[in-house]
């Protein structure tokens, strides 16, 4: 958040607004149309006032016994006419701009969704889910408000003074000139107070979110608080947050109230001029009583835009900042370029060759993968082990191009992976991720996520292979059980097995498993591995695990250390070599002296 605030103040406020133009363009005629309808509506509005003052003059004349060109009933009817006219046009115009605003936000949402789906891990490491959500909700709403309400405000700012001033001038030039000096004062006051208002309301927002996160954090750890007998301390701490919010709120209310007090004050000052000076003119017969009343009514038409100018400017600035923030998403180039050469075969056997494979994350000096050479035969199973940060996940990402793999370093069936169409590569190289993510949908949709049209039988088969059948059969809704945040909560092991089923159902030539058994108990794991072995005897399988009991099933095991291959060979070979893998095996199976193991592990990195 702190970074975002800096962006807001640092960039020139209106720089990004031109980026909104292509989104508004499809609706430009709708908006122009609304502007002209607004113009007509304003015309009717000012005429209503004109007719009222005319009516008052007519009354006065009739009281003095003089004849008048129109009867009061006629004038009243004319008023109803102008009011109806204004109503029709105003409804039409407001509806048009608000629909335009909605349509623009519709298009922005579509664009945002499409853009983020094409982004890779580098983008998501820079911009978190919460950040994107804020942009999708708040920034789009700001732009919608600009189109829907900003345009109405703009119309008021330009049309209202135009009509009010021209009618006022026609009635009394001297009185009009007398009250005009007030407006610049009012305008600057409005600008000043609305900027103070913006600061105050930002503080209220910050205090409120501070309050929310305080409560959330505190209640989230209520057991710790109570176990440590910290309740009274915490209640005292909450008072500070609570009181600070209350005070910020009061400050905002004070500025708001001041604004409410001063604006009518200025208006009344204008009224004072009208009452006294206009009163004289009426006495001297230079103005009618109706004219005087017209001035009193019209003064509101003049004040309205000035009162609005401040909020209008803020609206434009905020929408511009919002557009800038959205553009950061729209303008981000997809990291992974999908440029198939056409030479790659349509189906693959699953043979990989890594030639001096080196990979660095942007902005980080030391490479995550450093000169890896490896040949994986089609149908082979490879186990990968290493510490946190050794490069295991990065290596796996290369196979499915979830990272921007360098050209000429990774070959699948003799062709550079970059030559395959992305869709083909990712459908034939199936990867199961470390984080078992479930969508808030029925289990069957989660398992056959890549192709929801699959038959239920194949979904059950996959569930069988992942040892999930028993669990699913316990749910009343079986395969239709909705999981995820708003559904049934699965245990860690159940989720892992469900994501495993999601990978197995694809029966792909290459299967990549990223530490998918960590929450599955050893016996079930053995069971799944045995099933995997028979199912995938002729297919390539690459798996990452911390457990020797898992790794030992693989044809070959690769030990990664700081992005390099430290050891490579079968379980037995590595045990004989008595290196890192052998040390790991000792600690895990024998629970022997941990000191011994630690020293062994620290020898190797060098």
């Amino acid at each position: 958040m702190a970074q975002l605030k800096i962006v807001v103040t640092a960039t020139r406020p209106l720089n990004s607004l031109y980026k909104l133009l292509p989104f508004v363009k499809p609706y430009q005629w709708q908006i122009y149309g609304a502007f002209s309808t607004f113009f007509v509506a304003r015309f009717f509005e000012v005429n209503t006032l004109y007719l009222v003052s005319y009516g008052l003059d007519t009354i006065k004349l009739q009281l003095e016994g003089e004849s008048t060109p129109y009867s009061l009933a006629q004038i009243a009817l004319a008023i109803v006419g102008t009011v109806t006219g204004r109503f029709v046009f105003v409804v039409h115009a407001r509806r048009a701009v608000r629909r335009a605003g909605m349509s623009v936000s519709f298009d922005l949402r579509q664009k945002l969704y499409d853009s983020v789906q094409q982004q890779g891990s580098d983008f998501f490491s820079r911009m978190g889910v919460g950040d994107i959500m804020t942009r999708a909700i708040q920034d789009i709403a700001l732009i919608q408000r600009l189109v829907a309400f900003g345009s109405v405000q703009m119309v008021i700012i330009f049309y209202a003074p135009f009509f009010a001033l021209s009618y006022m001038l026609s009635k009394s030039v001297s009185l009009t000139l007398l009250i005009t000096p007030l407006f610049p004062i009012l305008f600057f006051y409005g600008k000043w107070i609305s900027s103070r208002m913006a600061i105050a309301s930002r503080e209220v927002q910050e205090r409120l979110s501070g309050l929310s996160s305080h409560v959330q954090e505190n209640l989230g750890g209520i057991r710790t608080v109570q176990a440590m007998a910290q309740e009274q301390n915490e209640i005292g701490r909450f008072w500070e947050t609570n009181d600070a919010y209350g005070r910020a709120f009061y400050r905002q209310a004070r500025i708001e109230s001041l604004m409410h007090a001063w604006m009518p004050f200025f208006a009344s000052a204008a009224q004072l001029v009208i009452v006294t000076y206009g009163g004289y003119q009426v006495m001297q017969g230079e103005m009618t009583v109706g004219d005087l009343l017209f001035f009193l009514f019209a003064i509101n038409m003049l004040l309205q835009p000035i009162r609005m100018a401040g909020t209008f400017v803020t609206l434009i600035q905020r929408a511009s900042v919002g557009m800038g923030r959205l553009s950061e998403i729209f303008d981000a180039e997809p990291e992974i370029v999908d440029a198939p050469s056409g030479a790659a075969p349509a189906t693959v056997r699953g043979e990989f060759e890594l030639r001096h494979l080196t990979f660095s994350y942007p902005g980080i000096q030391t490479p995550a993968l450093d000169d890896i050479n490896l040949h994986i035969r089609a149908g082979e199973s490879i186990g990968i082990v290493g510490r946190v940060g050794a490069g295991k996940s990065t290596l796996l990402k290369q196979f499915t191009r979830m990272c921007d793999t360098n050209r000429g370093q990774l070959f699948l069936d003799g062709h550079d992976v970059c030559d395959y169409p992305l869709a083909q590569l990712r459908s034939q190289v199936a990867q199961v991720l470390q984080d078992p993510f479930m969508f808030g949908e029925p289990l069957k949709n989660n398992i056959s996520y890549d192709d929801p049209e699959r038959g239920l039988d194949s979904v059950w088969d996959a569930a069988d292979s992942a040892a999930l059948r028993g669990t699913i059969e316990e749910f009343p809704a079986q395969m239709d059980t909705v999981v995820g945040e708003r559904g049934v909560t699965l245990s860690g092991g159940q989720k892992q097995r469900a994501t495993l089923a999601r990978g197995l159902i694809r029966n792909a030539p290459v299967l990549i498993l990223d530490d998918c058994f960590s929450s599955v108990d050893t016996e079930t794991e053995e069971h799944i591995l045995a099933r995997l072995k028979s199912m995938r005897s002729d297919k390539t399988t690459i798996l990452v695990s911390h457990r020797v009991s898992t790794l030992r099933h693989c044809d070959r095991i690769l030990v990664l250390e700081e992005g390099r291959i430290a050891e490579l060979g079968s379980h037995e070979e590595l045990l004989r070599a008595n290196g890192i893998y052998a040390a790991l095996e000792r600690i895990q199976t024998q629970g022997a002296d941990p000191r011994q193991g630690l020293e062994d592990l620290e020898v190797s990195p060098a």
Partner: protein
Amino acid sequence: MSEVRRDHSMFDAELSGAILNLQLFVRILKWLKPYRVTLAVSACLILISSTCVVTMEIVISRVLVDYIVSGVTESNMPDLGMIELTQWIHEQTGLDLVLSAGLLFAVLMILFGLTAHFHRLTLVSSIVRALRDLRQDLFAHMETRPSSFYDKVAVGRIMTRITNDVEALYEMLRGMGSLIGEFVPFLVALTIMFSTSVKMTLILLLLVPIVGITTYFFRRASREVFRLVRNSVSALNQNLQENLSGIQVVQLSERQQRNLDVYTQINKNNRRYEFRSINLSTFYGAFNDSLASIGLGLIIWYGGGSAIQDEMTLGGVILFTRFMNMLFTPVVMLGEQLNVLFRAMASGERIFQALDWDEQIHEPVEPANLPDRIAGKLEFRHVNFEYDRGAPILKDVSFTLEPGKKMAIVGPTGSGKSTMIRLLGRFYDFDRGMIFLDDVDLNDIHSSDLRRRIGVVLQDFHIFSGSVIDNIILGNPGITRERAIEAARTVNADSFIERLPQGYDTPLVERGANLSQGQRQLLAFARVLAADPEILILDEATASIDTETELLIQDGLRKLLEGRTSILIAHRLQTIQEADQVLVLHHGVVREFGTHEELLALKGIYYTLHEFQFQDVSLDDDGNPITEESEES
């Protein structure tokens, strides 16, 4: 267990809130009461300011138009002494009548501005302070609810009560305040209007029900549309959020196009409902604006007629045109406030339900006086416990743990291990005569005293916002910075803390997200060691941590346990082997008890669990593991 069983689902239920609940207002009064003087001042100020704003119009119509311009001396319209005042100013200052009226107008204007401003200030300040106090009381109340409450109620539900629901009450009280601020001038103006012309006033009042009726129909029609809009907006956000969280799965499954299609459909639905709501609200808004202007037409036509028939003066007609807005604004506002009111009703109900929730741990009337330092002998005597009637969790559990000894509890998932820990920390109520600390019944010890002596490390050790050192000291005045650092050093947390950008003063973000799982665990150890409790209870974390950190944790734990009576829910062989005794719990019953070697030799449940590396597994009644295999056969 004599305590009343509670239905916690009540706390989660959607409360109706549709009916006007007067009791709610009465209860809110309790928090407003301390600020009653301010509120009374506020009420006086609104009366003055309303009178000012009405009087200003009288100066224009009665004094300026009728008296000065038209020379009318007799009129139905009350002048509230303004004519005399103008005359007085005229005589005192020598200014002519128009200027005197202008001066009077200016004075009224300033008075109006000041009183209205201070009315709003006093009103807001008393409401804000009252609700701040309410929020504080609510928080303090929630903070002291027992674990049995938090087991059943989602934290999010409580959070909304403390934040959103209190906000809704503010909206309501503030809304009622401004409604009064609009209705007082309405009534004052109405009085003046009636005394000027009863018929004219009645004609204009006929328009008021029209506003009321349209408002009613608009609310009814829009309620459904607004609901659809709200639902479609949350569907949009939900879909986007989920897609973003699972973006890697989406991309690996090549689902982008399909997901975009689904999203487009939701987006289109949302646009359709938004369009409908736009149609409704633009019509309603413009209709309300227009009614006041129609009223102006009526005044010219009817009012003009009666003026000519000498029933009214020109100033009277003008007065009516000026009061038009004052007549309609409060009615329109009332319609807008109804929604706020209903929302606030539901919020108020939720808040008071929470405040009335009196679930708590029974504290002893005369708590036992324990010595400064206790030996730490623990005894369970035939402990039976159940959360829900008829579902016993612990059955006849007995053991004695001598001071300084360590006991590991192992058992399959759901065997009652965590319950034993919770009873020891007195997070739940249980009968007397079951658990003893140094031969004192736990029910005789005040829970805060007990918790000072029992250090608990839970699986989900919570990290608070604040610096590393704050998280170790936790506001305990007895812990110095040196002692905290010493504790961190002892449990091997020192090395990673030193490497943090600001060492011990590094701020930790929400829930310690900038620390690894292992680091958080070490920090939790340091926290407990710094507090130096006589008894230690540990629920060992099961998360997979790389072998190296694992060894640091084991070593830190060993130092933490030194010389302390300890009960450990253990998942690691290492921890279990070092315990003096091992207690095997299954379905709430102590099945095996002894040292690691003795139990292994038994070839019973302990042996099976050992085979499973003490992972959280399920066992059947005979102590055999339940796996998918055995279920099928």
